């Protein structure tokens, strides 16, 4: 039951039409509430691997939609929805982001040329959103954001029997979305196994709930007062979205002297800065915040009143941003020159070493990204839009990037083929078939056929304790994935690597190629090669610097 104040505000809203400006407010509310709950969505991760975080991907997608409409004065709801759709599409990251952008696309299509949004219009829009999203996925899987979108559309349709008012329909849709999310583990066994609900569905729920909270006049950003496990704090990626006024990053570790009042803690911090995250582990708390220069000591002074500070780290983000900008300049990567009429390949690469290898094989453009950082549709698009040819082949090299590549294909006038490589070794195998002067369709088909030529291995450290595919994993253990499936856990990289090679039947293959990541020293990688050589004397073994984050090794067996 809602409060009398909320009921009063709802009545107020019902008196006004939902025009373009009202939709804008709702979108902003959905984004704000999703962002407030971003970490909760991120934590719903099935595999214990460092992953492209769904919450972050969906927030960035919505943020791009918001950036598109922020300054738009349209009163026409159809035009506003079209702009939301366009922005979401260009910023779509990860599978969930792409599906979210498809939802908006369908939503906008149903509202084409509409002045205002009424109840039947909303029901139509939810239905069209559902249909468009299902069509945007090659093999729709139930128990995901798609199911939630479907249940939302049904709930809206049933609500129409009781009310014509769009807000009252929204009131009925939000609990239905919640129930649908809770039901996802029954539909998708991997969720049940991992003991989580679907993250994309949860994200969609937060967007809808945020809209309703806005209507009720409930706060949208403060209840972000959550504490995450220390290990789950992802402070690296916060750099990507620095806005003006976020000059310094301050991280303070402390042990509170009493119990910490989180609501009050967050409230105080919010007066100082943004991007607040709080983590806890074994009684120690870590606070993360971005603040303007003049406030840089305030969080430290404040935390000091709450307990004992054990460590303070402060970084100048502006200087760091400059450094990131410089690092991105392709100093030693020599990309292939494409001539008009030739085929250009765009490859997604998680590490500098891997990017160099792709470049050496004739790739014309590299998009930085991978498992932990899914590039947006816009980033993929920008990579090839200025190339002097119309023929483009995209190698996503990750299953979470295939849809964003597809979205990039859908918005460009260029002739784009996607070779759905799911791993780096698959992408490299495809490049073996590449011929820039060939017929694009035939070349892409050949490249696609070659994806099965290799067995892919990935060695990483488990981010949490779980049992998946019959393999028990303790957080912190080293795990091996074979062709994307978890196959074993081990105490150390060497054991995981040798175990993988055994499972991949390396003894009956010819060539083992290892790409070592930024977390593995070259000397350790070289030592590992000696161990492998001793065990596989008749195989050729090649060691390359990959430079990928989180994954100590990416291995190709062929």
């Amino acid at each position, binding site marked *: 039951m809602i409060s009398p104040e909320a009921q009063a505000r709802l009545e107020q809203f019902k008196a006004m039409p939902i025009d373009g400006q009202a939709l804008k407010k709702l979108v902003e509310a959905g984004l704000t509430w999703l962002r407030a709950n971003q970490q909760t969505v991120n934590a719903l991760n099935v595999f214990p691997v460092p992953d492209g975080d769904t919450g972050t991907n969906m927030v960035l997608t919505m943020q791009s939609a918001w950036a598109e409409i922020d300054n738009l004065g349209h009163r026409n709801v159809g035009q506003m929805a079209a702009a939301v759709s366009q922005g979401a599409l260009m910023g779509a990251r990860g599978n969930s982001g792409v599906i979210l952008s498809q939802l908006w696309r369908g939503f906008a299509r149903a509202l084409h040329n509409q002045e205002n949004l009424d109840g039947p219009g909303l029901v139509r829009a939810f239905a069209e959103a559902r249909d468009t999203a299902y069509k945007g996925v090659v093999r729709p899987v139930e128990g995901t954001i798609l199911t939630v979108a479907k249940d939302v559309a049904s709930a809206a349709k049933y609500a129409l029997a009781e009310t014509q008012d769009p807000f009252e329909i929204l009131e009925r849709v939000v609990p239905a979305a919640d129930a649908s999310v809770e039901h996802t583990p029954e539909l998708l066994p991997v969720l049940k196994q991992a003991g989580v609900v679907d993250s994309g569905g949860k994200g969609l729920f937060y967007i809808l709930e945020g809209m309703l909270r806005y209507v009720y006049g409930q706060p949208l950003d403060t209840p972000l007062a959550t504490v995450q496990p220390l290990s789950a704090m992802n402070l690296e990626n916060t750099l990507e979205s620095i806005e003006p006024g976020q000059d310094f990053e301050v991280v303070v570790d402390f042990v509170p002297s009493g119990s910490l009042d989180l609501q009050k803690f967050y409230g105080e911090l919010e007066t100082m800065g943004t991007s607040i995250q709080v983590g806890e582990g074994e009684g120690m708390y870590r606070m993360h915040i971005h603040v303007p220069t003049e406030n840089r000591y305030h969080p430290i002074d404040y935390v000091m009143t709450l307990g004992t500070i054990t460590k303070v780290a402060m970084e100048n983000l502006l200087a760091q941003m400059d450094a990131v900008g410089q690092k991105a300049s392709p100093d030693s990567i020599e990309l292939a020159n494409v001539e008009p009429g030739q085929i250009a390949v765009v490859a997604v690469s998680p590490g500098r070493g891997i990017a160099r*290898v792709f470049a050496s*094989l*004739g790739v014309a453009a590299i998009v930085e990204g991978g498992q932990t950082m899914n590039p947006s549709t816009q980033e993929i698009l920008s990579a090839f839009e200025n190339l002097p040819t119309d023929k483009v082949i995209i190698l996503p090299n990750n299953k979470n990037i295939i849809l964003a590549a597809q979205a990039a294909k859908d918005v460009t006038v260029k002739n784009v083929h996607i070779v759905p490589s799911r791993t780096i070794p698959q992408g490299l195998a495809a490049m073996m078939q590449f011929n820039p002067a060939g017929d694009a369709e035939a070349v892409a088909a050949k490249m696609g056929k070659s994806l099965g030529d290799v067995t892919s291995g990935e060695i990483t450290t488990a981010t949490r304790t779980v049992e998946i595919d019959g393999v028990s994993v303790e957080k912190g253990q080293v795990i091996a994935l074979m062709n994307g499936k978890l196959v074993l856990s081990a105490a150390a990289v060497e054991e995981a690597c040798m175990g993988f090679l055994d499972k991949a039947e390396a003894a009956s293959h010819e*060539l083992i190629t290892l790409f070592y990541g930024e977390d593995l020293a070259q000397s350790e990688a070289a030592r590992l090669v000696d161990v492998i050589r001793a065990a596989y004397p008749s195989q*050729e073994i090649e060691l390359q610097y990959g430079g990928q984050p989180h994954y100590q090794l990416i291995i190709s067996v062929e």
Partner: protein
Amino acid sequence: MKISLVTDSTSDISAELCAEHGIEIIPAILNLGDESYQDGNGLTREEFYQRLPSLPVPPTTAAPSVGSFLERYERLFTAGASQILSFHPSERLSGIFNSARLAAEHFGERVRVIDSGQITLGMGFQVLAAAEAIARGALLENILGLVEGIKQRVRVVALLDTMTYLRRSGRVSWAKAVVGELLNIKPLVELRFGIVERLAQVRTRSQGIQRLTDALHSWGPLERLAILHTNAEGDARQLLEELKPRLPIPPLIVNVTTVIGTHVGPNGLGLAAVPAPGG
């Protein structure tokens, strides 16, 4: 009218076949450090390929002098030839064609220098077909037509064990373009009309051999076939065993001349084939 045939050592026609058909071979030149060899003399192919990877200075190749062509043509005319056909690799690949052309200018129409567009048996088969036609008493125009037909149909593909030698040769533009290549890649190349094209690249030898046999099967019925290698006779024999059931003709097995091998590297494997017309 007596028609005589001249070619150079890059045609890879064996001494026995040359003797049988009266084909004259001008040796190309291989420079190994301070030593200079006439192709086929003083250094066996086996020995050369064994030494190639460890040579401190890469060997170089050179066209035979204009004088050596002049001398040979002169000798053939003295021996009664009325027409000479002189077959050589494309100008794009070697200076041999030019040496021959400069020498031929002294004899006017009596020496026809033919750009075979090929090397090794891709060229050798053109010469052998001409020899057989001469033996049948064919007319010059018919011989030239026959040779042109083979030049159009002949296929030469090779699996290189490494890019290193081809890149070093400086003869192939795309090989230079991928100079930053990091992975160990085995390119599959085809020579057509004097241009080395990259068909594919593979990372394991068995994938490459599979590609070779796939290519062969795509050519349809064959008139002639040679299995080429650079000191990989074992692989060549194995390939022969695999192909045998589908071959109407016994192929030649040829350890390729050092002058070509310098640019290909050891352990290469290839095919030269003449598909039947209309195939």
